[in-house]
C-alpha cells in the first residue's frame, strides 16, 4: 500500500473547516441581495453591481448528482437505450475479441507491428509512447455531509451517520461496487486510489512508467467516472490527461505478447474510451470533446464497415461466422448510437442547438428504435427547440396531432406541461404535471415541477408544502440535489428564518444519503 492511502484521521479533522468553507462560501450570491445603503438616486453607480448580475447558472446542467438507489424502481424501469445497449452485449455470444476491437492510429500501428515482429519487444520505447497515469490528489476525499452535520448540528448528530467508507468494504472491485451502490462516491474514489497505488499509479506517479492490465484500466475508468459525477474538474483534468485518447501502444494487448500472445484489440473498454472523449467538456473544453467524439465515430464507422464486409473489425482477413458477424455489427451499431447521443449532450452543453437537433434527427432515422423510443426522441427534439425558445417548432414535436385524444403517457403530459411553461401558463402546466403525477405517483420529477408551477402562480406556501411532503414520503428518493436546491430557494423566499428547515434537510441527508451529494445546494452560510 502506498503512503497516501492510509486514513489520517487527524488530518481529516483539521481539514473539516477549510473544506466546508470552501463549499459554502462559494455559494453564488442570490437574488435576494438588496441595496442596504440606498439613500438617493445619485448613488446608482456605486451600487450598480448589487442586483444585476450575469447569470452564472448554466441552464442545462446541474451541479452533479446524488445517488438514489432504490431497489423497487429498478425492477420496474422500462427498457431504454441504456438497457438496449447492455442487453445486446450481454445476450450476444460475442467473445472479447469483437468487443475490444479498436483501430490504432498509424503511428501506434507501426510500433505495435514492430513489437510483434522483433525480439526486442517494447523495452526500448520512449516515454512519449507510454501511458503514465497517477493520482493527482494526496489523501482521502472528505465526507462533506458528515463534516457539515458535525459543524451545524454537533457531534451528537454523527451517531446517525451510517454510511460506508473505503475501509468498510472488501478492498477490491466488489467493494467498489458496494460503495457506488450505496451512493458513497467519495469513499469509492478513495478506495480506487488505494487499489491503483498497488499498480504503482498512486499519488505523484504521473509521468512514471508503470504496467497496465485490463483491471487497472477498469479501476481508472471507475475512478474517472465518479470524479465526473462529482464534478471534480481539476482532479479530473489532471488524472485523465495521461491517457490521451487511449491510443498509446501500451493500451493495446499486442504490446504485451508475453502475456496475451497474439490477442489484439484495446485493453481499455469502450465505455472508458467514450468517457475520456467526453471529459474535456466537463472542464470547459467542449470543442475538444466534439473533436474527440467525431474521431471515435469515424473509427467505429470503419469497424462496422469492416465487419459488414466480412473482415475482422481491424480490417484484416479473418474467418467470422455469419452469426458472429451480425452480432458484431449490432454491437458496434449500438455503440455508434451511443456516440451520437454523446455528441447531442455535448452540443446542448455548449448551446449549439442546431447541431443537437441535426444529430437527433439523424438518430430518429436509424432503423432499430421501438415506437416508444421514437416518441422519446421526437419529444427530445421538441424540448431542444424549447431550450432555444422556438415555441412554434417545438409545438410540432410536442403537441399531439389529435388534440381530442387524451394523453396516454406521462411523457406526453410532461411535454404539454413544458409547452405551457413556455407560453407562461403555469396554471395549465401545473394541471398537466398533476395529471401525469396521478399516472406515476412515485415520480419525484413530476411533483417537483408541480411545486415550481405553484411558486410561479404565487402559491409559495403550497409549493413548500409539496416539496416537504415528497421528502417526508420518500427521503431516499427525494433527497437529490436539484430538489434540495429548489427547496432551499423556496425557503429563502419564504422567510429570513430559513436556516432551521435547511438544517433539517442536512439532518436527513446525514441520515439517509451517501457522501455524493454536494451540500452547496443547501446554500448554508457559515
Amino acid at each position, binding site marked *: 500500500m502506498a503512503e497516501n492511502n492510509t486514513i489520517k484521521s487527524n488530518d481529516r479533522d483539521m481539514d473539516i473547516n477549510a473544506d466546508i468553507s470552501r463549499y459554502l462560501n462559494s455559494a453564488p450570491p442570490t437574488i435576494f441581495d438588496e441595496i442596504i445603503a440606498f439613500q438617493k438616486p445619485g448613488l446608482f453607480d456605486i451600487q450598480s453591481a448589487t442586483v444585476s448580475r450575469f447569470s452564472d447558472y448554466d441552464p442545462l446542467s446541474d451541479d452533479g448528482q446524488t445517488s438514489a438507489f432504490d431497489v423497487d424502481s429498478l425492477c420496474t424501469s422500462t427498457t431504454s437505450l441504456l438497457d438496449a445497449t447492455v442487453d445486446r452485449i450481454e445476450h450476444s455470444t460475442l467473445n472479447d475479441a469483437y468487443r475490444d476491437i479498436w483501430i490504432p492510429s498509424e503511428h501506434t500501428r507501426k510500433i505495435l507491428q514492430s513489437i510483434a515482429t522483433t525480439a526486442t519487444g517494447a523495452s526500448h520505447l520512449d516515454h512519449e509512447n507510454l501511458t503514465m497515469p497517477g493520482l493527482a490528489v494526496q489523501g482521502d476525499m472528505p465526507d462533506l455531509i458528515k463534516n457539515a452535520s458535525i459543524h451545524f448540528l454537533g457531534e451528537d448528530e454523527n451517531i446517525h451517520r451510517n454510511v460506508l467508507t473505503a475501509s468498510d468494504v472488501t478492498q477490491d472491485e466488489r467493494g467498489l461496487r458496494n460503495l457506488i*451502490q450505496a451512493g458513497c462516491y467519495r469513499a469509492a474514489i478513495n478506495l480506487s486510489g488505494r487499489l491503483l497505488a498497488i499498480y504503482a499509479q498512486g499519488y505523484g506517479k504521473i509521468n512514471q512508467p508503470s504496467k497496465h492490465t485490463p483491471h487497472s484500466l477498469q479501476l481508472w475508468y471507475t475512478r474517472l467516472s465518479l470524479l465526473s459525477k462529482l464534478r471534480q474538474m481539476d482532479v479530473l483534468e489532471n488524472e485523465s490527461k495521461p491517457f490521451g485518447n487511449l491510443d498509446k501502444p501500451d493500451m493495446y494487448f499486442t504490446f504485451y505478447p508475453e502475456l496475451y500472445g497474439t490477442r489484439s484489440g484495446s485493453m481499455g473498454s469502450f465505455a472508458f474510451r467514450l468517457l475520456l472523449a467526453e471529459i474535456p467538456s466537463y472542464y470547459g473544453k467542449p470543442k475538444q470533446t466534439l473533436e474527440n467524439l467525431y474521431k471515435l465515430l469515424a473509427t467505429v464507422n470503419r469497424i462496422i464497415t469492416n465487419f459488414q464486409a466480412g473482415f475482422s473489425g481491424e480490417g484484416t482477413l479473418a474467418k467470422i461466422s455469419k452469426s458472429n458477424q451480425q452480432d458484431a455489427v449490432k454491437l458496434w451499431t449500438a455503440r455508434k448510437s451511443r456516440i451520437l447521443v454523446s455528441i447531442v449532450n455535448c452540443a446542448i452543453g455548449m448551446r449549439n442547438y442546431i447541431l443537437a437537433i441535426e444529430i437527433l434527427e439523424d438518430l430518429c432515422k436509424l432503423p432499430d428504435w421501438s415506437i416508444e423510443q421514437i416518441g*422519446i426522441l421526437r419529444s427530445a427534439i421538441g424540448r431542444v427547440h424549447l431550450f432555444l425558445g422556438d415555441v412554434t417548432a417545438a409545438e410540432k414535436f410536442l403537441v399531439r396531432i389529435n388534440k381530442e385524444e387524451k394523453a396516454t403517457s406521462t411523457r406526453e403530459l410532461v411535454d404539454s406541461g413544458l409547452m405551457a411553461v413556455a407560453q407562461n401558463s403555469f396554471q395549465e402546466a401545473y394541471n398537466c404535471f398533476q395529471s401525469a403525477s396521478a399516472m406515476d405517483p412515485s415520480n419525484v420529477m413530476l411533483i417537483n415541477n408541480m411545486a415550481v408551477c405553484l411558486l410561479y402562480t404565487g402559491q409559495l406556501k403550497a409549493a413548500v408544502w409539496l416539496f416537504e411532503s415528497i421528502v417526508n414520503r420518500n427521503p431516499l428518493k427525494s433527497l437529490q440535489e436539484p430538489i434540495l436546491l429548489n427547496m432551499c430557494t423556496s425557503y429563502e423566499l419564504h422567510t429570513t428564518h430559513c436556516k432551521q428547515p435547511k438544517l433539517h434537510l442536512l439532518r436527513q441527508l446525514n441520515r439517509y444519503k451517501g457522501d455524493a451529494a454536494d451540500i452547496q445546494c443547501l446554500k448554508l452560510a457559515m
Partner: protein
Amino acid sequence: MEVKAKSEHLLTLKVMRLTRPTLASPMVVTCDSTDLPGNTLNNELKNDCTTLQGMEALAIGQFMVLPQSFGNIYLGEIFSSYLCVHNGSNQVVKNVIVKADLQTSTQVILLSSNNLEGKELAPDNTVDEVIHHEVKEIGTHILVCEVSYTNQIGPPLSFRKYFKFQVVKPLDVKTKFYNAESDEVYLEAQIQNLTAGPICLEKVALESSHLFSVTTLNTNDEGDSIYGSVNLLDTGCSRQYLYCLKPQSSLLKDPKMMQNATNIGKLDIVWRSNLGERGRLQTSQLQRMAPEYGDLRVIIKDIPLKVYLEEPVNCTCHIINTSERSMELLLSLESNNSIAWCGMSDTTIGTLKPGASMDIPLCFITLDTGIITISGLKLTDTFLKRVYDYDDLAQIFINQLD
C-alpha cells in the same frame, strides 16, 4: 443570504425575480455490464430525478429548476417578480399594505398595491404577490417595495426595500433603403443579437404605412425560411431581412405624393430565449430618403431580358415632368463604343405639363458584350435652354451570339 434584520420589524419582505425555470439534466456516465461498475452507474442514472426516462443517456432535461440568479433583463422583456411578506413574529399584525413601484430615470410606475386593511396576518403567514411588467426603458430601474402594517399597540409601522437592476438593449437593428426604378422600395433590416445567449426570432414583420403594401422576401419558393431549418440567432450574430414595398396605385399616379411618401412603417420584432422567455420590440417609424429627381425623371422600361450582340434592342423611355412648370422638350441621342442609337436625334417631342409623363419608343444596337450602360440621352428644355444629360439610364447584359 441570511441577513439579521437590522430593525425590529415583525414582518420581512423577500423578493425573487421569476425568469423562466431552467431544465436540469443529469451527468451522464454509462457503462457496459462487463465494466467494473457493472450496472451500478446505469441504475443510478435511471433513478436520477433529472433523467429522461426511457432514454437515460440523453442529457435533455424536464426537471424544472427555480432561477438561481437575477440574470440579465432586456428591453421589451417582461420583468416578473415574486414578493413575499412573511410574519416571522409570534404576534398577529393588522392592516398590511404592500406597495411596489418601479422607478426609471423618467418615471415611477406603480406595479402593485396589495391592501389588506382591516385584515389580520397571523404568525408564520404570508402575503404573496407575483408582479409583471414589460420594461420599456433602457438603463437603471429600481424596484421600491414598501410594507406598512400595525401591530397590537401603537402607530402604523413601515419599511422599504430597494432592488436595483439594469435594463440593456437586446438587439441592434440597422436599416437600409433602396429606391428602385420601378418605384418599389426595398428595406434591408440587419438584426444583431446583443443578448448573452442564442435567441429565436419568432417574428420580424414590417408593418407598413397605408401607402405601401409589403412582401417579405425571407422565404424560398417552397415557403421555407432562408435562415435554415432551426430558427436560431447566436449571441453576437446578425441576420438580414429583406422587404419589398409596393406603393399603392393612387400613389403611383401622383409623382408629388410619391415624393412625399417617406413614412415606410415599423418593424415589429418578437424573440424568445430559454424555455420561451419572450421579448418584443417595435422600431420607431422608419423614414426613407425620397429620391431627388430634379426637374425631370427619366426611366427606361421594357428592356428585353435576353439581349444579343449587334442586335437591335427596343425599349421605352418614360419621361415625367417633376417640376412646377410646363416644358418644351427636345430629345438628342449620342452613340458611343457600346451602343449605337437608331433613329432621329434632336427631335422635338412636345410639351409636358407639370406631373405629366410620356413614353418615347427607342431603339439601339449593342456593340459590346458584358454589362453595358445605356447612355448618351439628352433632353433640352427649349424654353429655358436648360440641358439634362442622362448617361446612366440602365444597365443591361449583352450575350455573345452563339
